[in-house]
C-alpha cells in the first residue's frame, strides 16, 4: 500500500498540453476515480503513474519517494486494462499465480497467496478451467486477481469494465467495489462513465481539457458541482441549467415572466449580473397546488420515479412529478437544491443555503 502524490504534474505532446499542472494526493488504501471526457488527460495521467508515459515536469511520489525515473517494474504497481489478456493455454489458477512464478516466489508462498486471492475473489470453482470457458466479466475478475496477488503498492485500472457487456457491467461494478474495500489497496481508476465513478469512488477527480475541474466525494460533486461543466457531466437525468436575469425583488427565469423572489433564493446570494441556476431534476418538483404555473410538456419514468419536462424559452427542463394524480400542477424550486454559476465563466458563485 502506498500514498500517491502528483505535484505540478505536466505532460506535453509537442506543443499540446495533455496534462496541465495537476496536483493530487491519493491516500493509502483510497479508491480514487479519474473521470472525464475522452482526451481530457486522465489516461495519460494514469500511464505516467504506471511509468508507461514520461513526464515533462513535476513529481510523482509514492510514499514520499519520487518515482518519475523508475521503470514500471520498479514501481510495485499493478495495472489492468480494458481488454483482458489471459494466457489461453493456462488454467485460471496458473494465470493468477503467473506473476509470482515469474519472480521465483517459493511454492508454499504461492499456494498460500492463491488461497487468499481465491477466497476473496470467490474463484474456487473456476480455478481449473481455462479462460475461454469464462464469461468476459469473470475473465476481468481473473485479471484483477492476477494483478493483486503480488500485493502491489498501487493498483491502476484503465477502463476495466468498458469492454464488458452492459448486463455484466453492473455485476462487476458491485464486485469491484467489494473487492477493493476487502483488499484495501490504493486504487486509481480511469473511466468516462459517471455511473461507475459515482458508484466506486471514495473521491472523484473530474478532469476536462487537461486540468482538474474538481476533486471531491461523489455526494459532494453531485450536490455542489464546482462549475457548469461538473454540473452537466455528473448526474442522470442531467442538472437543469436556467439563465437568470436580476429584476427588482428577485431573479427572472430567462425571458419568461416567472420570477424567483428573494424569499425563494438563498440568503447568501448577492448578484448584480446574470447568473445560471443549476437545479437537479429531483429538486424541481411538480406539485398539486400553489407554485409557479408553467405548462408541462411530457411526463416519463426513471425507475419508479415519475419525471416531467417543460420548456423555458429554448431550454427543456426536467423535474420530478410529485402530483398525486394526473391533471394540472405547478412547479416548486427546492431551495436546498439550488446551485448558482457565473453566467460567463461557468464557475460556482454562491454557497448553497443550508438544507
Amino acid at each position: 500500500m502506498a500514498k500517491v502524490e502528483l505535484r505540478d504534474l505536466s505532460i506535453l505532446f509537442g506543443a499540446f498540453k495533455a496534462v496541465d499542472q495537476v496536483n493530487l494526493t491519493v491516500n493509502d488504501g483510497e479508491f480514487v476515480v479519474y473521470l472525464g471526457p475522452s482526451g481530457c488527460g486522465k489516461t495519460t495521467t494514469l500511464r505516467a503513474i504506471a511509468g508507461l508515459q514520461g513526464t515533462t515536469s513535476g513529481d510523482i511520489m509514492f510514499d514520499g519517494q519520487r518515482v518519475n525515473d523508475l521503470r514500471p517494474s520498479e514501481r510495485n504497481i499493478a495495472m489492468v486494462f480494458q481488454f483482458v489478456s489471459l494466457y489461453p493455454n493456462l488454467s485460471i489458477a496458473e494465470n493468477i499465480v503467473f506473476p509470482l512464478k515469474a519472480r521465483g516466489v517459493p511454492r508454499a508462498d504461492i499456494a498460500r497467496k492463491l488461497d487468499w486471492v481465491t477466497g476473496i475473489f470467490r474463484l474456487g470453482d473456476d480455478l481449473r478451467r481455462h479462460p475461454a470457458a469464462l464469461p468476459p466479466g469473470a475473465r476481468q475478475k481473473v485479471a484483477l486477481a492476477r494483478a493483486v496477488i503480488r500485493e502491489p503498492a498501487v493498483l491502476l485500472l484503465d477502463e476495466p469494465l468498458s469492454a464488458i457487456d452492459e448486463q455484466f457491467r453492473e455485476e462487476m461494478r458491485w464486485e469491484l467495489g467489494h473487492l477493493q474495500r476487502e483488499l484495501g489497496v490504493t486504487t486509481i481508476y480511469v473511466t468516462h462513465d459517471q455511473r461507475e465513478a459515482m458508484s466506486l469512488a471514495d473521491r472523484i477527480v473530474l478532469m476536462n481539457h487537461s486540468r482538474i475541474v474538481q476533486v471531491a466525494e461523489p455526494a459532494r460533486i453531485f450536490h455542489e458541482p464546482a462549475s457548469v461543466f461538473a454540473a452537466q457531466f455528473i448526474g442522470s437525468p442531467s442538472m437543469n441549467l436556467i439563465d437568470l436575469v436580476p429584476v427588482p425583488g428577485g431573479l427572472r427565469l430567462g425571458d419568461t415572466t416567472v420570477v424567483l423572489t428573494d424569499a425563494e433564493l438563498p440568503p447568501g446570494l448577492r448578484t448584480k449580473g446574470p447568473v445560471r441556476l443549476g437545479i437537479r431534476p429531483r429538486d424541481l418538483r411538480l406539485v398539486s397546488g400553489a407554485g409557479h404555473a408553467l405548462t408541462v410538456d411530457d411526463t416519463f419514468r426513471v425507475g419508479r420515479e415519475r419525471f416531467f419536462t417543460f420548456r423555458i424559452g429554448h431550454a427543456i427542463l426536467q423535474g420530478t412529478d410529485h402530483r398525486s394524480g394526473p391533471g394540472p400542477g405547478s412547479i416548486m424550486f427546492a431551495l436546498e437544491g439550488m446551485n448558482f454559476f457565473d453566467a460567463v465563466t461557468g464557475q460556482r458563485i454562491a454557497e448553497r443555503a443550508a438544507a
Partner: protein
Amino acid sequence: MTAMLDIRGLRKSYRGKAALRGIDLTVQAHEILALLGPTGAGKSSTLLASAGLIVPDAGQIHLGGRDVTGAEPSSRDVSVVFEGFNLLPILNVRDNIAFALRSSTYREPEDEIARRVARTADLLRIGHLLDRDTGTLSGGERQRVSIARALVRRPMLYLLDEPLSALDLKLREELRAELRHIHREHGTTMLYATHDYHGAIAIADRIAIINNGRILQTGRIDDIFARPADAIVGRLVGSPSMAFFRAEIADGGVRVPGWRDVLPLSRFGKVAARPGAVSLGVWPEDIDVGDSGESGSIYAVDNRGYEAAVQVDCDAGSFRKVLEGTHVPQQGDAVSFRLRPGAGFLFDPASGALLSHQGGAA
C-alpha cells in the same frame, strides 16, 4: 384500440437452433411498446421478421390489419433502425437521410424533402454533418444518421433495435426524449427492442418481456410490478432487480433458511404449489433495512451521490436495494431487514413460473 402490429405463433430457427419459439405480440396503434430482454432472447429476430427481412418458419404477422407474413419488405411501410445499421456508403449524409423520401413509394417534392431532412438532422444534432461522407463519421454519428433515416419518414410502424445503446449516456437521454416527443406530436407507433430496463421504462407505454424466444409477459410496468409472471421477469425488471431467496413450503408456511419469521402461506394469495422447495422473490422496495427482523451483512455499498444502494447477503440469498434514510452502512456491517406486509412472490425454483397470486394480485 386497434392493433398496428399483431404477431401470432412466430417461430424461427437458424441451423436447427430455435431463436423464436412461438412469439405472440401485439403493438397497439399509437403506442410505444418496449421489447425488453437479454442478448440472444429473440428481440432482433422478432423485429427482422416484422420488417420482412427474415422469413419465419411458422406464424402470422399482421400490419395495420393486413396479413403481411409473406409480403415483400418494401410493401410493409415500416421503418427500421438497427444497431450498426449500414448506411449507403456512396451517398453523403444528406442523401442518406433523404433516400427513402425520394423512392418510388414517397416521391416527395424536393423542397419538402430539404425541409424534413433539415428538421430531422437538427433533432439528432447532425445538421453540421449533412455534406459529409458517411465513411468519415464516428460510430455515434453514424448511429444518429441511421436514426434520422428512419425518423424522416412517417411509416405505420417504427422498428427500433437497440438504437441508442452505442451512444453515450447524455445523448441517449436526449434522444429518448426526442423519440417521445416525435411520438407525442405525430402519434407514431414504435416497437423498441432493448436489453436496458431504464431505457425501456423511460420510453415505453407498455413493456413486453422476452426471453429464450418467448414472450413471458406484456403490460404496463405497474402491472408487471404487481404480478411478475416469471422469475426471469423479476430479474430483468426493477432497479435493482428482484431479490430471490431459497425457501420451502412446509406446514402452511414459507420457511427461509436462517430466517426467524415463517411467512404464512396465506399472504401469497392462491398458491399453486405443494410442500417443497420454492424461490421467494421480493421487490427491493418491499424490503425495509432497519433495526429489527432477519439478519444479513453488507457485501458492498454503491454510493450514487443522491442516494446509496447496498447489497445485503444472508444465508438464503442476497438482495440489492436503494436506501431511503441518510445513514449508509459500511461494507461488512451487520444489518437487519424485514419484508413489508403482503410483499413477496413464490416461483418454481426450476421453471421460474409464478406459483403465488393465482387469480390476480394480492
